[in-house]
């Protein structure tokens, strides 16, 4: 089953989240009317005035004089987008991002791990809400085409599931404009033929469609039957992998903090290994109780996919970053970047001393350990195996309870 996750009014919602005073008021993100800018995104309050993305900001202001126009902060949205992608990757490595605010997820292989696709969709929506305070609409369907339509049907905060046996009843009543590739021109032609719904389209023989629409005709014939066999192509060009977690209450215990960081490192490294990559740079991110963000990074002498090596670096970064004075943390995150292809043979600097040979042996040993651990987790789920110190965290949670 495929999930299409689509953030609702993403840019505008991010801005609303940052400035609660704008909630409920019409807000757009875009260029200035003086600069002849256009609307990049409009929140739902603004949409009520007929404002949508791509119209000139000047027009939008005419439609709604009280409109709040905010500048586009793309890099910030990208950061929020990464947080969402991190959530997706907790469920499946098969994530195909379409843009900052939407992505396809193939969850076929992980339903035994996390429950039915619908369950996964609910959990993803919840996690996005919890971690980013943003709302997503999700479509769940046997293929990309249907999932994309489904996610759009009950926006905002929608969840539409199309089961394999409901495909036709789901598609039939929809207007033909919902089909991929049906725009103004094609729509007009279909209109002339008296075709308005997908059900009507499905009634046409494939030859008629071919005559009218050429090679596109067969494409429409398939789509009207819910046939779409394009695979979800994960984005292998990712430049970094990271995980972070925000604590329900600020963490003051260094051991608990380390335990969480250790877990996050484990998740990051598992994803890295799944992508058959090696990384050289380790990043640490922490957010203090006063919301200040501290980031630190370190580049290792050689690329690695060994959890223990990245964990060692992450731990040292953490120790250096937090002095006893400000051990009140809201968030901790760890990431890796600077990827090399793990399969490539590469030049490695040789060492003078035996101790480095020991390091190399240790490296080989740890790699073996990681691959065994990965295999166990792949088979029995990610919670099947955990480090001793992760018990610290559950103890802390017990206290909270």
């Amino acid at each position, binding site marked *: 089953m495929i999930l299409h996750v689509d953030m609702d009014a993403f840019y505008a919602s991010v801005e609303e989240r940052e400035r609660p005073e704008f909630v409920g008021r019409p807000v757009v993100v875009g260029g200035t009317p003086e600069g002849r800018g256009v609307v990049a995104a409009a929140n739902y309050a603004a949409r009520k005035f007929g404002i949508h993305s791509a119209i000139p900001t000047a027009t939008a202001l005419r439609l709604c004089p009280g409109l709040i126009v905010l500048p586009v902060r793309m890099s910030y949205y990208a950061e929020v987008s990464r947080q969402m992608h991190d959530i997706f990757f907790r469920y499946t490595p098969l994530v195909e991002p379409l843009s900052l605010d939407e992505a396809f997820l193939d969850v076929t292989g992980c339903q035994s791990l996390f429950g039915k696709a619908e369950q996964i969709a609910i959990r993803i929506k919840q996690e996005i809400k919890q971690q980013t305070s943003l709302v997503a609409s999700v479509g769940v369907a046997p293929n990309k085409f249907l999932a994309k339509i489904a996610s759009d049907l009950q926006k905002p905060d929608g969840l539409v599931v199309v089961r394999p046996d409901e495909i036709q009843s789901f598609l039939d009543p929809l207007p033909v404009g919902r089909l991929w590739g049906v725009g103004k021109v094609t729509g007009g032609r279909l209109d002339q033929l008296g075709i308005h719904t997908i059900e009507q389209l499905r009634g046409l023989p494939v030859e008629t469609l071919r005559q009218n629409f050429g090679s596109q005709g067969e494409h429409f014939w398939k789509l009207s039957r819910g046939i779409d066999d394009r695979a979800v192509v994960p984005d292998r060009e990712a430049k970094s992998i990271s995980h972070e977690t925000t604590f329900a209450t600020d963490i003051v215990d260094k051991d608990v903090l380390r335990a969480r960081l250790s877990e996050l490192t484990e998740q990051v490294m598992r994803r890295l290994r799944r992508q058959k990559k090696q990384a050289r740079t380790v990043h640490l991110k922490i957010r203090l109780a006063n919301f200040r963000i501290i980031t630190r990074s370190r580049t290792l002498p050689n690329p690695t996919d060994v959890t223990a090596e990245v964990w060692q670096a992450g731990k040292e970064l953490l120790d250096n970053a937090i002095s006893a004075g400000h051990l009140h943390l809201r968030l901790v995150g760890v990431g890796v970047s600077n990827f*090399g292809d793990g399969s490539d*043979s*590469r*030049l*490695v*600097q*040789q*060492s*003078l001393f035996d*101790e480095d040979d020991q390091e190399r042996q240790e490296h080989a040993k740890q790699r073996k350990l990681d691959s065994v651990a990965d295999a166990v987790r792949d088979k029995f789920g990610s919670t099947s195996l955990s480090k001793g110190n992760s018990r610290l965290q559950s103890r802390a949670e017990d206290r909270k309870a």
Partner: protein
Amino acid sequence: MKITCQRESLTSAFGLAASIAPTRSPKEILQNVKITATGGRLTLTATDLDVGIRLEVQEGVEIETEGSALLPVQRTMGILRESNDEKLTIETDDTGIRITGSRSKFRLPGSNPDEFPSVAEFHEDKYHVLPTRLFREMVKRTVFATDAESSRYALGGVLLEMEESSVIAVGTDGRRLAKMEGTGEAQGGHQTTGTSTIVPTRAIQLMERALSDKDDAVDVAARANDLLLRTPRAVIYSRLVEGRYPNWRQVFPTRENAVQIDMTVGPLFAALRQAAIVTDHESRGIDFTFGDGTLKLEASTAEIGESQVELPIGYDGEVITLTMDNRYLADFCKVLDNESSFVMEVESSSSPALLTTDDGYSYVIMPMARDR
């Protein structure tokens, strides 16, 4: 305390002391230089607790009233630098410090000088006397090979081995190793024990900077946990690096059948810089091929390009290729004059290159190799 001193001589001494005072420290008192005027002498001390300096200003000091004061580093340095007076008067009273020029006056708050940590004096009767030039060269030629970032702390310093007339300095980061040997003179049977005298990189650099070529010799005394260096004007103290230094003698190449090639720094460095144009941070290896009267340097980096540079050499035996990190060789070239000659000893692609000069300097570079 009340003193008058020549601004220039005070500025240079103060600047040196100030370079040791930490710019940021939880112990704020360390961001001062302590001056003590007693017995006709003016002494400046500064420390960050790991390294300490004690400097004497002999020229142009008139002491009216003996005593001591703490001068805040940053402001005092500013006054000394910006003033154009030939002489400045520094005095203390109940409210703080007053610095007076002919047409300027400054007031700075004064902390209690008695609270300033004491900086060790040189009272040793066992020490080594080294030529100043030698000591400076030793530091310059080894310190770059140390690795302050290493998880093995011992590599974050220069190892000193002194026994009788032999003095050896070693710096290594585990991938290349620089060694400088020279002769000194032991006083009172002074000698270091094993590989325990490791002077932190920063401290030994400060020592080098404190030396003046006007002085012929320096005295160096290694103790169990620290090291003292004395020049006619200054004493510098440094804590030693704790940790086990790797057995560098064991990995230092002693080969009978290796190839030795005479080379000159300048031309090699020039060829290296050319070949290195297509290297980058990720891809630093350069292939060195020795044979047919030619040294061929070749580099190739995906998406950047390839280079091939040739240099005539006096060797036409069996062809030997080894890959080295271009920076490691550049580091060696940088600390020598262009005219300096040296011997490059190579054996195979998997064994280290050994570079030696005839003034006691040796440098070992481990090659790079294909992995996986």
